[in-house]
């Protein structure tokens, strides 16, 4: 389908497509097998200016919007959402600075992220605070000119690989949800370390670790925005980034459909290519229909977000749920179409099916996204 992309958007697609086809696809199985962080590929993406897409021009970026980043992530996701996640998490990590940081802070951090010289990461989740972010226990206490952080973040993407970490900590427990703040922690700050890499079901090219703060001291000016606005910044950050996760789902599903459909044309059983069996054709047709419906929703949501940045929660959640549930289903069906071969590591759909699952979990589970949509409906229908 023609989505009437601008010339610049076509360029983003071309570049991301070339990196995916020439760099990611040939290496994805090995990165998965070895749990290897894709440093060289990310370097290539940096050189191609992809890290600059979401960053304003005044900080060395391209000044792109939600749809621009969605287009890039969709292509990368077609190759490997492990690599796509590593890339996306760097954007996620700097959104708090983009959204709420001071001008000095933006000048200090954004140019290096735009050029890909530095990666970022976003640290919210803790052992006892997943869906319920208000349960976080990491604290930041002001001591003279320094914040002192204590606590442990869990499952942080790009942990150990990033140089810039935006972290949520309680700065005033008595104030409840208004008692949290976001701060920037840098690699090498005293008292800050990352745990070992987690062993995961999928997206194994991405690194996931704990962030450990033991009397970690950082300068006072590392506070992002005003004290107590931590959760507001978190919500805005995740609202902005979720369409990117949806886009990884689109890409993954496209990759799975491509594999399954071309396999179905070659695989002969009962004297015919299995594509000739209506049951197989219908499965492929449903995959294609669901994928295109999701793509329309994600692109539509991204355009809405670009036009109405203050009213994005509901569409952002809607498109994340729809596209990632679709990706899980399409990847599962791709394995089904390919039968036993699909289940083998030699074929990429086995990895795609393992990878797809994370999309329904991170950046807010799909249950939590449905809660968001439901709560918005509740508000809308109370007003009416």
């Amino acid at each position: 389908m023609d989505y009437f992309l601008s010339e610049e958007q076509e360029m983003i697609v071309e570049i991301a497509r070339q990196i995916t086809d020439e760099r990611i696809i040939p290496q994805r199985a090995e990165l998965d097998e070895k749990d290897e962080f894709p440093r060289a590929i990310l370097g290539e993406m940096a050189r191609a200016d992809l890290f600059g897409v979401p960053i304003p021009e005044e900080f060395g970026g391209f000044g792109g919007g939600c749809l621009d980043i969605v287009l890039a992530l969709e292509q990368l996701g077609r190759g490997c959402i492990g690599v796509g996640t590593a890339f996306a998490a760097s954007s996620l990590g700097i959104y708090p600075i983009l959204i709420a940081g001071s001008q000095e802070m933006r000048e200090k951090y954004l140019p290096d992220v735009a050029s890909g010289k530095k990666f970022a990461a976003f640290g919210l989740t803790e052992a006892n605070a997943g869906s319920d972010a208000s349960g976080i226990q990491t604290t930041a206490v002001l001591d003279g000119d320094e914040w002192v952080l204590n606590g442990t973040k869990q499952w942080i993407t790009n942990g150990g690989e990033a140089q810039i970490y935006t972290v949520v900590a309680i700065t005033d427990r008595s104030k409840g949800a208004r008692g949290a703040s976001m701060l920037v922690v840098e690699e090498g700050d005293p008292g800050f370390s990352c745990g070992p890499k987690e062993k995961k079901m999928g997206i194994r090219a991405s690194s996931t670790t704990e962030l450990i703060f033991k009397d970690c001291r950082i300068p006072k000016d590392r506070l992002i925005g005003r004290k107590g606005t931590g959760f507001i910044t978190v919500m805005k950050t995740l609202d902005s980034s979720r369409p990117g996760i949806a886009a990884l789902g689109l890409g993954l599903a496209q990759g799975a459909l491509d594999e399954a459909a071309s396999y179905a044309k070659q695989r002969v059983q009962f004297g015919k290519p299995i594509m000739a069996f209506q049951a197989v054709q219908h499965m492929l047709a449903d995959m294609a229909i669901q994928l295109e419906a999701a793509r329309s929703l994600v692109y539509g949501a991204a355009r809405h977000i670009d036009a109405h940045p203050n009213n994005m929660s509901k569409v952002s959640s809607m498109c994340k749920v729809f596209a990632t549930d679709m990706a899980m289903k399409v990847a599962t069906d791709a394995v089904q179409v390919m039968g036993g071969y699909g289940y083998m590591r030699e074929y990429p759909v086995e990895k795609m099916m393992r990878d797809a699952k994370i999309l329904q979990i991170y950046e807010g589970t799909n249950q939590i996204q449905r809660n968001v949509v439901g709560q918005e409906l509740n508000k809308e229908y109370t007003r009416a």
Partner: protein
Amino acid sequence: MKIIVCIKQVPDAKDVRLDPKTNTLAREGVQSIMNPYDQHAVEEAVRLKELLGGEVTVLSMGPPQAEEVLRQAISCGADHAVVVSDRAFAGADTWATSYTLAKAVNVIGAFDLVLCGKQAIDGDTAQVGPGLAMRLQIPYVTCVQKVREATNSGLVLERMMDDGYDVLALDFPALLTVVKNINEPRVPSLKGKMRAKKVEIRKLTAADIGADPAFIGLPGSPTQVVKVFPPEARCIRTVFTGSLDEQIGQLVDSLQSYL
């Protein structure tokens, strides 16, 4: 550092056909691409620029559509582009091509280094690079597989040989032709692509470069293609089938029959 890279636009090898009547390439409807070796020449030039400063000019002789490959080179980091295009250049062989390129290089002006691909995947002669160097009266090294050291006055290089490689040092100005393992060409950047869209490509005609009509195009080409034909397939091909083990068995059997 001023670097000039010569780029040829060639038909995509994936769909090349010969016109059986004229024995020339049927170029109609065939996708054109940058000669693959030249992509490596562009990449090496851009790397040298990033290392030493300076600028990279890409140059192509060809029909006006040759602009496309020049824009591609800009998107990968080249700074300026020049296309030499004139009906009078049609039918040029390597002799006339290197004359024309040499004239164009003189118009572009001072340079330290000229880079060419080792060969074009259509003409395949590997003569244009050395021919151009002779006309420019500068030293050249063909089949460069690695730049070991680079300074503003010269280079230390590895030249690929059948049995290993030579290590050579040379001073600027010079010309190199490069092989594919010299580097891995980068993916175009977003800023590069935007610049490529807008960049003004300098167009030069036969008159602009002061070319002698007797030395260009068909009249200036001592070589004539008498006949082009696909070679007869000579060897007997056997395709083994079955499981991997069965295929290995068949291969061993067939090799043994030669013993």
